[in-house]
């Protein structure tokens, strides 16, 4: 099979201040292939792609599209070169329908009255009238034609702007060609994440993109939805489109791509054929050293009920049930995983337990190990009240720098968040927090210029180490962690898994909210699956199947499911 180059990058370098995001990157993309761009967080994948679609401009290097050098200064330039990107965060108008979003921003093909008039005159000049009557008729005809031009323009405009039927037809054509399963008349706010993504893809195809770039498209999808997406990507590839897919999930790389390009610290390490490599080799290229990808899982021992949630209901600001009748028990010496599509109530659940979220009903009970497992009611308590009750509850929130830590404060002051009330009299005590900060920096190998550095200057992995370190330092009996490895590189992720396992072995009841089902299955003893605020199942971590969890994430089982669909229909 003959390969033609669709896109070529030569020697691309991009720096942000002191930070080198990309350095001398060369990359080739052929027509009709799927190329995976693999790399850890911060390895410069997104920056590189942003340069191809005109969001950033490279400091050095050239981009060739279809063999010719192209200078891409804006997304408009990229569109003109038939390059389309599907971003991680969708850019859709919520109150519009799918079709409206696709055609939004498209301009009417140029129609200039002046030029059309010139054309008409030129065409008429070919005619040589002989008889005077013919001459008059000729003049009248031309005059009529010229004076009609502005009206034709208005007509075209009306047709284009208000009678979008012809364009909708084109969209339907595209979606049936690639097998998209979507209702074009549906409003965006009624759509699931996967449907929104589909709209984004159709939008790009509608604009005639030949090169598609997808930035972490699978991060928010269930296993079933991923399969569907991959099928569509394959169909597009067979249709001759070139696709770049950014990801850091190895199994997906293996499943979908024809070739893999690996980036590490902004540099292009290698491009290999997927068929000729394996996950281990790819990891090694990505990280730069050998790494053990197995997560240890010890058998839980001395298991006791530590925290019981019964019939918990939370109503959010819009008056919707964010949590509906949720019941479960977290046990000491166990890691309880919580799975679910983003926004299924995970945040509300943890915040309700931590005393940050108003609850509408139910019970949250804690069994105090220091008081012979006496029952403590945590319902409707503030974080301070919970602390004063002697409940050692630690919480690693999802939003690290917006909630767990203060980005502009240094490590010491961030340690103080938990301990500042302990200072003598009205003064704060910075001595103990300083020791704690130094301790954490040393034990967890936090890379920082010093304990007086603002945490926002640290990398994502180090920020998380500081946060988890602080929460663990409080010697918790319950440790809740929401997406603790999101955005972390592989090494840091494994450090966090290891820390959670250590806590589990110490007899802490660990609650882990995660998005990577493979990790949940490897790490957790039990997995609770949330679907639209309800518990759709609790499965054993050992022997659980990804597909089963995926199904639980999208639909409720048994009778409840029927009720739910009826409610949704209303």
């Amino acid at each position, binding site marked *: 099979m003959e390969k033609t180059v669709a896109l070529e990058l030569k020697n691309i370098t991009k*720096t*942000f*201040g*002191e*930070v080198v995001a990309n350095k001398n990157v060369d990359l080739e993309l052929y027509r009709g292939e799927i190329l995976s761009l693999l790399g850890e967080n911060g390895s410069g994948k997104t920056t590189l792609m942003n340069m191809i679609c005109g969001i950033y*401009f490279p400091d050095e290097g050239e981009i060739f599209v279809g063999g*010719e*050098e*192209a*200078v*891409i*200064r804006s997304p408009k*330039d990229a569109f003109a070169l038939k390059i389309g990107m599907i971003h991680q965060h969708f850019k859709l108008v919520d109150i519009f329908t799918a079709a409206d979003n696709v055609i939004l921003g498209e301009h009417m093909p140029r129609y200039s009255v002046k030029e059309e008039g010139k054309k008409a005159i030129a065409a008429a000049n070919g005619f040589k009238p002989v008889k005077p009557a013919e001459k008059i008729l000729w003049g009248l005809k031309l005059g009529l034609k010229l004076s009609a031009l502005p009206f034709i323009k208005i007509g075209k405009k009306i047709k284009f702007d208000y009678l979008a039927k012809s364009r909708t037809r084109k969209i339907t054509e595209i979606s049936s060609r690639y097998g998209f399963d979507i209702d074009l008349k549906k409003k965006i706010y009624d759509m699931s994440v996967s449907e929104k993504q589909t709209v984004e893809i159709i939008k790009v195809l509608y604009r005639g993109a030949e090169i598609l770039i997808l930035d972490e498209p699978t991060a928010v999808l269930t296993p079933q939805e991923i399969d569907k997406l991959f099928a569509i990507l394959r169909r597009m590839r067979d249709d001759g489109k070139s696709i770049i897919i950014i990801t850091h999930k190895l199994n997906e790389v293996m499943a979908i791509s024809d070739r893999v390009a690996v980036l590490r610290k902004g540099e292009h390490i290698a491009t290999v054929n997927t068929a000729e490599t394996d996950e281990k080799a790819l990891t090694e290229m990505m990280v730069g050293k050998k790494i053990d990808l197995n997560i240890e899982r010890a058998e839980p021992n001395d298991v006791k009920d530590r925290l019981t949630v019964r019939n918990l209901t939370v109503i959010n600001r819009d008056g919707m049930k964010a949590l509906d009748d949720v019941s479960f028990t977290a046990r000491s010496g166990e890691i309880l995983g919580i799975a679910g599509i983003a926004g299924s109530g995970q945040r509300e659940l943890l915040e309700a337990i*931590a*005393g*940050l979220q108003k609850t509408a009903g139910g019970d949250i009970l804690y069994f105090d190990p220091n008081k012979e497992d006496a029952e403590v009611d945590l319902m409707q308590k*503030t*974080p*301070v009240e919970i*602390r004063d009750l002697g409940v050692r509850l630690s*919480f690693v*929130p999802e*939003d690290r720098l*917006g*909630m*767990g*830590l*203060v*980005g*502009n*404060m240094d490590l010491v*002051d961030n340690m*103080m*968040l*938990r301990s*500042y*009330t302990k*200072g003598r009299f*009205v*003064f*704060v005590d910075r001595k103990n927090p300083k020791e704690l900060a130094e301790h954490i920096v040393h034990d967890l190998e936090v890379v920082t210029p010093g304990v007086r550095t603002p945490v926002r200057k640290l990398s994502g992995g180090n920020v998380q180490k500081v946060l988890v370190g602080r929460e663990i330092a409080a010697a918790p009996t319950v440790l809740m962690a929401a997406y603790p490895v999101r955005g972390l590189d592989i090494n840091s992720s494994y450090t966090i898994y290891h820390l959670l396992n250590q806590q589990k072995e110490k007899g802490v009841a660990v609650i882990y909210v995660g998005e990577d089902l493979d990790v949940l299955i490897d790490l957790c003893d039990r997995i609770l699956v949330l679907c639209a605020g309800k518990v759709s199942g609790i499965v054993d971590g050992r022997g659980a199947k990804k597909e089963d969890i995926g199904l639980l994430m999208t639909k409720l089982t048994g009778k409840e499911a029927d009720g739910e669909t009826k409610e949704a229909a209303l």
Partner: protein
Amino acid sequence: MTVKNEAVVSTVKRHKEPLFRLIKRTDIPIWKKWVIRIATFAVAAITAGLLFTFIIGDGAAFGTFFKELWSGSFGTERLTYIFLNNWAIMMCISLAVTPAFKMRFWNIGAEGQTLAAALGAAFVIHYFGKSLIEPVVILLMLVAALFMGMLWALLPAIFKAVWGTNETLFTLMMNYVAIQLVNFFVNLWSPGGSGTIGNLGNGSFHGLFGLPYIQNAVFVAIVTIIVFVYLKFFKHGYELEVVGESVNTAKYIGINVKKVIIRTMILSGAVCGFAGFLLVGGSPTPTINTGLVGGRGFTAILVSWLSKFSPIAMIFVAALVVFLQKGASQASDSFHLGASSAFSNIIIGIFFLMIIACEFFIDYQIKFRKKEGK
């Protein structure tokens, strides 16, 4: 062939690298920062001097300008005392707005808070000045001033904390309420309805430490230390910083955000109140009028921001502002540029525009397009 060449030429023409780009500096050495700042200051001074020379239309005025600029604050002993007094008031109001700003509570009502406090002090003098002994009057003035300052700050704070109203608009409006109240009382108290009050007569503690105006500077120095310690070493200072940085974090660790907002604004108002007290009682001739604070409540916002909320830096920034005000008006007076403060405002404007702009160049680097032919 020719067609293809044309195509290439047109792409080059159509697409050019942007003319310049801004790059955020991550770390710039401290000495470089200060070189930029001092250079900016020099450029601002020269620009102001040239402008002055241009207005006067005499080349010799350039040198005179700098002489007058200096002598405005340090020309005579008396001017130096006045400079100190002005510094004290400016500093005090700047200190007052700082805790609120650190909490990201945009209190632009320092003008009104100070004026309301001054009114409180004047009220005490007017009604009790003749009947009570001086120390009691002064003590009552202090209490009244603090009360009024706190009240003016407390109202927007409660509305913000409980109902989430916009504090910027609220504090701004409170300024006008204070001004109108002062207007009302001045008319009420003025002899024969003249609309102005002269010396209220009693309630002055001017010259407390033997030297003119020095007492204000001494008191403000103490306030500076208190605010510095409060912000840096008090639990309260830590709490308000967390609230300012992130309300979510504050809630997460169990800080009562409403309480912190109200408490901090009470403090802010109290310090403004103290400034109002100094404005009335610290003067040899205590009086009250709507222009008593003279816009310093607004200038204080600038001072606080430029010193990045550090009370130590504020000492110098406040001094600089007062120095420029005094010097520029001295220069304009000596050349009879009119009684209005227009010229001195222009000079101050030149300086601050450049100083603020220079902070931009400290934070960002400008990179121009490389020359063609690479």
